């Protein structure tokens, strides 16, 4: 189950990663293993050819892994760095579905970004930890001021 943070609940020692492209290119790309294949296939509908290479979904050419979509990079950031908090504001519905299906991961967004397929999510605000299994309940909590 992933954890959604409200801004006020983010520990002072932690920083939100907002620029998922940069973080992925600098750090996460080095961590990728076979688990990344499925994520890349699900979100960008393409094959991972090697640790730093993917196939273009449009013409089959070999591309550097930095050409993954921002949504896919965000999902991989969340998966490979479960202790960091990532802004998911740039994720499409397909990337959100993957992120909300993960066993662990920390996310943030200024406004609700929720996959329609969500099942169970943990939310953290000033009042503590909450558990949500309903889209509308999570949305209402997320929209409320801290």
């Amino acid at each position, binding site marked *: 189950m992933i954890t959604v943070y409200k801004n006020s609940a983010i520990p002072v020692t932690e920083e939100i990663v*907002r*620029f998922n*492209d*940069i973080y992925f290119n600098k750090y996460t790309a080095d961590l990728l293993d076979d688990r990344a294949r499925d994520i890349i296939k699900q*979100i*960008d*509908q*393409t094959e991972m050819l090697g640790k730093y290479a993917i196939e273009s*979904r*449009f*013409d089959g050419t070999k591309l550097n892994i930095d*050409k*993954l*979509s*921002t*949504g*896919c990079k965000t999902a991989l950031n969340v998966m490979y760095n479960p202790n960091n908090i990532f*802004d998911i*504001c*740039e*994720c*499409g*519905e*397909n*990337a959100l579905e993957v992120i909300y299906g993960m066993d662990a991961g920390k996310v943030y967004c200024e*406004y609700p*970004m929720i996959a329609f397929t969500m099942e169970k999510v943990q939310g953290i605000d000033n009042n503590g930890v909450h558990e949500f299994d309903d889209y509308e309940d999570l949305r209402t909590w997320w929209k409320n001021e801290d």
Partner: protein
Amino acid sequence: MKIKPIILDRIYTKHTNYIIDLQMDSNVTFVSGDSGTGKSAVYSFLLEYSSEDSRIRCLNYIDHNKDYKETIRNAKGILFVIDNADLLLNDEMRQYIALDTNNQYIIIGRNPTSLMLSQDEILGLDSVKNDDRTVFSLKKAFG
């Protein structure tokens, strides 16, 4: 606030086997949709095209430390292409863009708040393969 495009109503360019054919009906074109549909690829092709047409200026996350807000506010006669718009544009800038009649915008992002867009102004990217070529164009996101 829907007004006709004031700089260009069509962008047509080519990058090797990719053809980019964007038809724009309003001054602010908001492009959204699933991750991995080629939005940032099209941005990179438009960045290349901007070297041929000085009216086009491209901004993305690489510019976040630069004074891009002032660049927009001081511009006249420019078509701004803004990728990673959810990171670059706050509500204030989105309001400014919605009311700006000096410049045109293609905005790639997810949050259209404050842009005063109607549903038919929110577009997605369409890609069609013809033999070994791929044509990117805009399509309505809803309906």
